[in-house]
């Protein structure tokens, strides 16, 4: 191609693009809670929770090549740790977050270790079983005194009262308020913080020595073994971390909705599949994949939510979906999952990288200079 744009990595143009992107993200983050409609804020908050969950899954898959179908259980551990601590023991909701994190870490480590010692599909199998066991366990009569069985728990949320402080800035408060009149922006920001936290943990793991050895594991087990990485334990710890991070959005969901039941979708295997869909659609193996995936997922699910009524389907796609009185979201994403594997195995982010590579050449910095630049790109197709 003749008209290629050439950008020097670390050069002025590169920094300008970065700054512009960052500014756009910040502007968007401020715009949503202040100017966006209530339903938009809700959608984005839900998307943020799904993002965190999918990121945790992505850490596992993208960097160890392992797959979990049981992350709904860890999400559920978050939900129930918070719900039980708040309703049974009267804890303040946000204090339960680190506890949920710890509980999920331990459970994840214990459950994954037997499967991680063996190559192949066993981890997927064990975690799928875990995903099915979790709701059953919550409803187990022996544990009802704690979980209240299938009736679920109430009043698990954050209690707003008129005495809570407000944090206004010249009469302007983009974070809503804690007195209970305008709480949606508040949860939005909690969600954003959570995503940032999970992102930083993932990034930390990825860039650390452990992370590099993880990539070595993914690409070549023998090489990793030669490097002296204890595979099963390293993978187990990463699995635990991944599980722990997935518990955080679970906790937030209990705090935000105020009621929990063991049969709500994200706590069942359907939840695990949702996280998987988001990760694959966004792009596995890249830190930004789940972010894109969650946004696309949540918007499409909400957009198509009322398509069970044929009259609500826009004309262009009506013939495709009007024959059924079931919302097509599940089917759309199922087909997306299959088609993406054929045409874009690295999802939206992978497609974006490909597209950019067509018109832009990024000249890497000379070897040896320390990199301040994000290095991750979609892993090479194999």
């Amino acid at each position: 191609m003749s008209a290629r744009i050439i950008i020097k990595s670390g050069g002025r143009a590169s920094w300008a693009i970065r700054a512009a992107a960052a500014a756009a993200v910040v502007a968007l983050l401020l715009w949503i809670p202040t100017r966006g409609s209530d339903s938009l804020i809700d959608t984005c908050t839900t998307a943020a929770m799904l993002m965190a969950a999918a990121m945790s899954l992505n850490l596992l898959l993208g960097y160890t090549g392992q797959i979990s179908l049981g992350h709904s259980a860890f999400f559920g551990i978050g939900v129930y740790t918070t719900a039980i601590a708040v309703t049974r023991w009267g804890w303040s909701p946000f204090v339960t977050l680190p506890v949920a994190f710890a509980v999920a870490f331990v459970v994840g480590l214990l459950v994954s270790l037997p499967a991680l010692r063996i190559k192949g599909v066993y981890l997927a199998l064990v975690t799928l079983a875990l995903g099915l066991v979790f709701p059953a366990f919550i409803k187990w009569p022996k544990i009802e005194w704690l979980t209240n069985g299938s009736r679920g728990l109430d009043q698990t949320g954050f209690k707003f009262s008129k005495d809570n402080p407000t944090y206004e800035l010249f009469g302007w408060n983009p974070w809503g308020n804690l007195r209970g009149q305008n709480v949606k922006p508040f949860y939005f920001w909690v969600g954003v913080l959570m995503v940032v936290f999970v992102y930083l943990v993932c990034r930390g793991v990825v860039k650390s020595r452990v992370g590099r050895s993880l990539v070595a594991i993914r690409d070549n087990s023998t090489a990793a073994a030669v490097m002296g990485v204890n595979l099963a334990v390293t993978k187990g710890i990463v699995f635990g971390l991944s599980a722990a991070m997935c518990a955080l959005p679970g906790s937030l969901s209990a705090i935000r909705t105020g009621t929990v039941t063991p049969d709500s979708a994200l706590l069942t295997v359907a939840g695990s599949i949702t996280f998987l869909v988001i990760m694959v659609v966004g792009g596995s193996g890249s830190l930004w994949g789940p972010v894109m995936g969650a946004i696309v997922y949540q918007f499409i699910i909400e957009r198509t939510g009322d398509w069970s009524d044929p009259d609500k389907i826009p004309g262009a796609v009506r013939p495709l979906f009007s024959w059924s009185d079931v919302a097509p979201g599940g089917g759309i994403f199922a087909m997306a999952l299959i088609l993406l594997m054929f045409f874009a195995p690295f999802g939206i982010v992978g497609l974006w990288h490909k597209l950019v590579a067509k018109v832009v050449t990024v000249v890497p910095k000379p070897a040896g200079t320390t990199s301040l630049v994000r290095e991750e790109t979609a892993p090479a197709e194999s």
Partner: protein
Amino acid sequence: MALFLQRLVDGLAEGSIYALLALGLVIIYRGTGHLNFAQGEMALFSTYTVYQFGEWGVPIGIAVLLGMCVGFVLGAATEVVLVRPISKKSPFAVFIVTIGMFQLLNWLDGAIWGGQQLPSTAMGSKQVKFPSLFPSNPDDYFTVFGAAITWRSFCILALVLVIGAVLYLLFNYTKLGLAMRAVASNSESAKLVGIRTSTVLMFSWGIAAAIGALGGVVFAGLTTNVNQSLMFQVFIYASAAATLGGFDSPGGAVVGGLSIGVIQNLAAGYADEWVGQEMKVGVAFLVILAVLLLRPSGLFGTSKVERV
């Protein structure tokens, strides 16, 4: 004693359904090394078609055969259209594709036969009455050593033993069976002796899905309904059975399936307040974990299992 015998037979009957699905899992795993996560959903889709044929007035026996044909075509088509081209890319892609099939079939079931799709709702959904294949009135039983054995359990067990025998003959005494075993054993050498490995794999998937369809029908008959979440747990029981028996051993799948059924029924029977209906799935989970810890290749597997 009588009670024990009764529970044993009921466990064997339930276990034979798991054995059917586990057989399907094993046949596919041996051929391609993939775990077909859509196995249960393929069975469910075929089961719905059996229901549909019944609604159209087809006698149940013929409807079941037609349903098995639907299953065969579904399995074979999945292998040819999706799994074969994608398996050149990576095992991960195959895994995702089977998950995609899982989701797609489940959604289709709901979209065609009513119900609600997976991600936005809980697993409960509209249920469809399903006819039982076998006598299932309360007084359809006979007595052995004082134990009341229902004809239904007896027939299911007999059916599975017959299917097992047919498969045994197929594997060991037919050219197709020989080809299937050869492909499972060494795919390059299979090509070198002139076996069309792709055709064999297509048949493997087809047969696996057809057997699964039968399992689905029998299970739906046992619980007298079909619904979208019917096969989730059965799939896990079948996987537990395959893990227990060894993922590359068809005989192991049968033994594993029967064992899981018996273990579950005895556990649920004798420790009702601990296990009950809810935690039956917990038993399967513990079996999987225990097998992985103690004997990863399963009871009869030829231990191609690799340690990390």
